[in-house]
């Protein structure tokens, strides 16, 4: 897993690439935890470069979502750009009902901008 972080209108966009599987779960958890660093943090995960996510990766995303919800003052955490296989794993685990998923990064940025 590789990543790049850019900031757009105060929104941290984390571009991930490569499979998000059990061998990457710890690094992913630390990476996302570091971005959700306080009240008002707005974090968007770009999944367009992620070909595969497994149960461990799903777990990290659910954890990050809850961490953002638990930050005093409220932080925002969303995901965007999931391909067919990744979206299907979210759907099969029904975590798509909890997580904020957007079709594209621009859609996600717009949603987080409006929410600020």
């Amino acid at each position, binding site marked *: 897993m590789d990543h790049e972080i850019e900031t757009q209108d105060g929104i941290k966009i984390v571009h991930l690439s490569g*499979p998000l*599987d*059990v061998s990457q779960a710890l690094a992913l958890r630390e990476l996302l935890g570091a971005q959700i660093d306080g009240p008002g943090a707005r974090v968007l995960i770009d999944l367009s470069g992620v070909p595969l996510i497994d149960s461990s990766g799903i*777990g990290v995303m659910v954890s990050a979502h809850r961490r953002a919800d638990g930050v005093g003052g409220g932080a925002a955490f969303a995901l965007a750009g999931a391909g067919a296989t990744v979206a299907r794993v979210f759907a099969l*685990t*029904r975590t798509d009902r909890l*997580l904020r998923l957007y079709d594209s990064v621009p859609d996600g940025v717009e949603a987080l901008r409006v929410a600020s």
Partner: protein
Amino acid sequence: MHDTLVLPTQLTAIDDARRWTSDHAHGAQFDPTAIAEVEVAMTEALSNVIVHSYDEQPGEQLLLSLDIDDDRLALGIRDRGRPFDPAQYRAPDLDEPAEGGYGVHLIEALMDEVTRRPLADGGTLVLLVRYRSNDGRDRS
């Protein structure tokens, strides 16, 4: 086609197994969507074995077999670790999103057949089958 792969009991080796399977499946003109879903299922199956049967202890080996014909793809995973105990398995509550525990659920949802049987040598064979006729578009 038929091929085998010896894989060390290390989570970082799962990527090698995925690439091996994907290369053969693409070469056999298996549906790309189905291949991607097989990769997810095999990732879960291998991580289950490495984590739960071997406690992530390196130095042991898994034997993978891959058979692809006109009808199906069949991936076999042989291990000699601690056997899976169905009595210990708890299916996830899909109404309560969790931070893990979806592995077996995903394997069964993404594959057409999943069998697990003990071997005479004390090991276990997990067989994952996906049919060509199921290209992923009609599955819920």
